[in-house]
């Protein structure tokens, strides 16, 4: 009973604080002291992230995001060192098997697992920098999501909705997400094992567990 009374009184004080605050703010427009005016940070309205302006991206083909809205996918190709293929294979030539290990040896072709290292499962036979979709259409490397979702349709659905994948820069404004290959190595998509960052030093309250 005593507790209840205390709580009631406590609640009653807060509207009172509110009235004061509102009254104080209301007076500010007039002759309230404004020594030099408030810092700019108080008056600047929050703005959508500008970082996105530098991210090359293009609208997603064939899918919509939450609420049926369109969204964009960040380009993957600027980060590929040996792209475009024509930078080496300008004349359409292929490498000898010995040289191929030197140049493309970092490719770990373990995916798709049951298909084995069959490049043409995903790459168009005529042009490795074009992706071959299962339905016969083709896609660019920046549209890898179209190819991946051909098998991984559940992940494709979650990716479009926002439960899978990674949104860049801000929660508001233009939605730009990474493509599948922004995180996954398409030839070996499993996430790597890494040593984690520093752990906690303060024990959890009430127990010896960290």
């Amino acid at each position: 009973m005593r507790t209840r009374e205390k709580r009631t009184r406590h609640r009653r004080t807060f509207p009172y604080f509110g009235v004061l605050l509102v009254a104080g703010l209301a007076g500010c427009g007039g002759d309230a002291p404004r020594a030099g005016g408030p810092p700019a940070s108080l008056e600047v309205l929050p703005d959508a992230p500008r970082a996105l302006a530098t991210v090359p991206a293009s609208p997603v083909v064939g899918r919509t995001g939450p609420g049926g809205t369109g969204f964009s996918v960040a380009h993957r190709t600027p980060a590929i060192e040996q792209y475009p293929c024509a930078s080496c294979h300008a004349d359409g030539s292929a490498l000898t098997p010995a040289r191929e290990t030197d140049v493309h040896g970092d490719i770990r072709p373990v995916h798709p697992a049951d298909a084995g290292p069959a490049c043409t499962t995903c790459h168009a036979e005529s042009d490795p920098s074009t992706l071959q979709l299962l339905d016969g259409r083709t896609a660019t490397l920046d549209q890898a999501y179209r190819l991946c979702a051909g098998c991984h349709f559940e992940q494709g659905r979650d990716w479009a909705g926002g439960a899978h994948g990674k949104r860049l820069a801000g929660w508001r404004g233009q939605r730009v997400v990474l493509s599948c290959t922004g995180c996954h190595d398409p030839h070996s998509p499993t996430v790597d094992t890494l040593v984690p960052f520093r752990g906690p030093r303060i024990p959890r309250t009430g127990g010896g567990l960290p």
Partner: protein
Amino acid sequence: MRPDETRTDAARGGAPGPDARELTFEDVLRYAGRLEAERKIPPDVLTAPSAAGPREGCGSGSCGCGSQGGGDPPAPAGVLDKPMDRRRALGTLFGAAVLGSQAAGACSPVGDPDGREAALLAWEEYFKGNFRLMTAAEKAETIRRMERLAELRQGVDVAIKATEAQPGVMFGYAFNISKCKGYRECVEACIQENNLDRASGTQYIRIFEMEDGEIDFEHADAGYMHPVPAEGHFYLGTQCFQCANPPCVEVCPVGATWQEPDGITVVDYDWCIGCRYCEAACPYWARRFNWSEPQVPAEELNPNQHYLGNRARTKGVVEKCTFCIQRSREGRLPACAEACPTGARVFGNLLDPDSEIRWVLEHKRVFRLKEELGTEPRFWYYTD
């Protein structure tokens, strides 16, 4: 004049009525219980008529050093010509006197001017009010003081914002326990972004390594230091869940912590008395207490700060995750969500039906921790 009217006038900063002064003191006393001890100061000292014009600080070269010999407070030259609450009046009156006697060089030409200015600013800071009761001008003043103090003490140029909650925004968070691999990149980003104490190793986020099949915090390991992800384990991160019904706010005896309109529970570090009731009340262990003065190297300090977020804290106050209020209120993702390399963290506006967080809540199987407590966390866990 009715008391209410007088109070309103004083709060507005308008012309004081005949008895406005007295009522203003009462008001301040009511809010600032910690100043109760100061009541022994005779009222006539505070209300003495002005004779020498507006007060000038020591830095201006015309300070009232001559009156400090006996230890009596100096005559309040014009201090109360304008309406002033007790808190500010005390700060103004005794600032110069106390500093003059404690810092011997306060008025001597050979003193350290930066140290003197910092001491004066810190003194003025002590007498400011609760953030929620400040006018925009008062917020601007304290922010200017804090920015200057950071420059004087650490030589860093910080920008402290007081960005308010945006209408139509209620922040929510979702965490994919299928995707988290325990790298702790979020923890690291949080430490950097929020200027967490390096000396004590304060962390807002804790990642628990759990055996597949069961969520069991008693047998979970948060201190793992082996390569991750470990076979047969999954990872679940905790931090402040920004509850819709926060018990930590309920127990605060001084109103130093509250829930903002966008759902973020914040702390006014300068109003916190360090009682740690909130820490005890939180069922998720989301609050952290500063047992020592927080240490952040100047070169690692994040200068982009918010009054209710990552600005400098002191020893003896409680702090917590604010969903990176200095970032999220500008439309950016919290540092943890941005740093996560596996996309396990989804952040957004719960009131926007077209947001990713809403899509997750509507399409995925989600749960929250300790739902039976009725705290209504705005932080959901989900699986692929």
